[in-house]
């Protein structure tokens, strides 16, 4: 059980074999044997100055601890009980591992005061609160793998946030526009384009399409002017020969030839 520590060997080696007889025997440090948690007994109890506070709790506490380890629905209490139990396993000093047991007693007494709330006689809100605590604890475990900076975004918002701000290729840009719904401005622009382009009538859908309708009403031709006597005289060709001229000029009025 007792071992010579490394420091003792160094001291003896440094001083030499001659000094070995003069020096006092190496100081021995005692290490307690590995201790089993709680129910292991009182090993190491005598090696360290013990006081009344380090007295081992009654075996009933161990039974309570064992029973409480089986109560997993109490997440908070399980974690606190684990804090009380686990350091005693890791601790080397025999005295320190006793001290959490006293805290453990107080915690366990608190557990006992809470325990009746879990029964069916209590209102359902108490059980619901316990279930909520358990759900929150499980959610905390899930949040550790999620992004902490974006905890409240929904799925589209998460995708938009993780998407690069500037698309890298033109194909990616067109693909994004194709997936998004058409905006009202683009729809209005298409209507204006078809309205101001006569040749775009055939591309705007079904039905009867008329690009340009031109209606021209012409005035009726002017009626022929009414011919008067003076006009008929003016339009009468003048005779060219002298005989005819004489006949016309004088024959009418009675030319006497004789």
């Amino acid at each position, binding site marked *: 059980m007792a071992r010579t520590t490394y420091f003792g060997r160094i001291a003896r080696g440094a001083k030499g074999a001659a000094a070995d007889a003069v020096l006092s025997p190496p100081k021995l440090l005692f290490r307690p044997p590995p201790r089993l948690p709680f129910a292991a007994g009182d090993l190491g109890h005598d090696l360290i100055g013990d006081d009344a506070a380090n007295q081992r709790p009654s075996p009933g506490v161990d039974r309570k601890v064992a029973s409480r380890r089986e109560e997993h629905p109490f997440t908070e209490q399980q974690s606190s009980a684990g804090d009380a139990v686990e350091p005693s396993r890791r601790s080397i000093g025999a005295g320190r591992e006793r001290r959490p047991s006293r805290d453990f007693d107080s915690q366990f007494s608190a557990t006992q005061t809470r325990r009746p709330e879990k029964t069916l006689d209590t209102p359902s809100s108490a059980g619901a609160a316990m279930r909520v605590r358990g759900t929150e604890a499980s959610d905390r475990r899930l949040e550790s793998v999620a992004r902490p900076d974006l905890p409240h975004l929904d799925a589209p918002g998460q995708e938009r946030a993780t998407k690069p701000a500037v698309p890298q290729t033109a194909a990616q840009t067109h693909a994004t526009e194709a997936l998004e719904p058409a905006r009202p401005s683009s729809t209005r622009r298409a209507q204006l384009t*078809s*309205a101001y*382009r*006569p*040749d775009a*009538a*055939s591309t*705007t859908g*079904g*039905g*009867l*399409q*008329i*690009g*340009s*309708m*031109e*209606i*021209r*009403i*012409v*005035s*009726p031709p002017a009626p022929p002017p009414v011919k008067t006597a003076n006009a008929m005289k003016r339009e009468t060709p003048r005779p060219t020969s002298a005989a005819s001229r004489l006949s016309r000029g004088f024959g009418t009025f009675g030319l006497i030839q004789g």
Partner: protein
Amino acid sequence: MRIDRLSLQIPGVSEAKGRELGLLLVDKLAAAGGLPAIGDMPRLRVDLIADPLSSPDQLIERIVAEVMAQLRRVP
């Protein structure tokens, strides 16, 4: 039926009166039956000789009849 552009030239009629006649013509065309459901006519031209003795409604009726006649010939 969709008309992208309507041009109306009536001599001796003011612009306001011509606008009224245009709207009346459109209403008459919309109410007219027997038009082809599907068709595409880039340009439709109607030339009529005005009758000084007829009323504007009669003029519009003549225009509608001529337009219908041309639209029925649309393939």
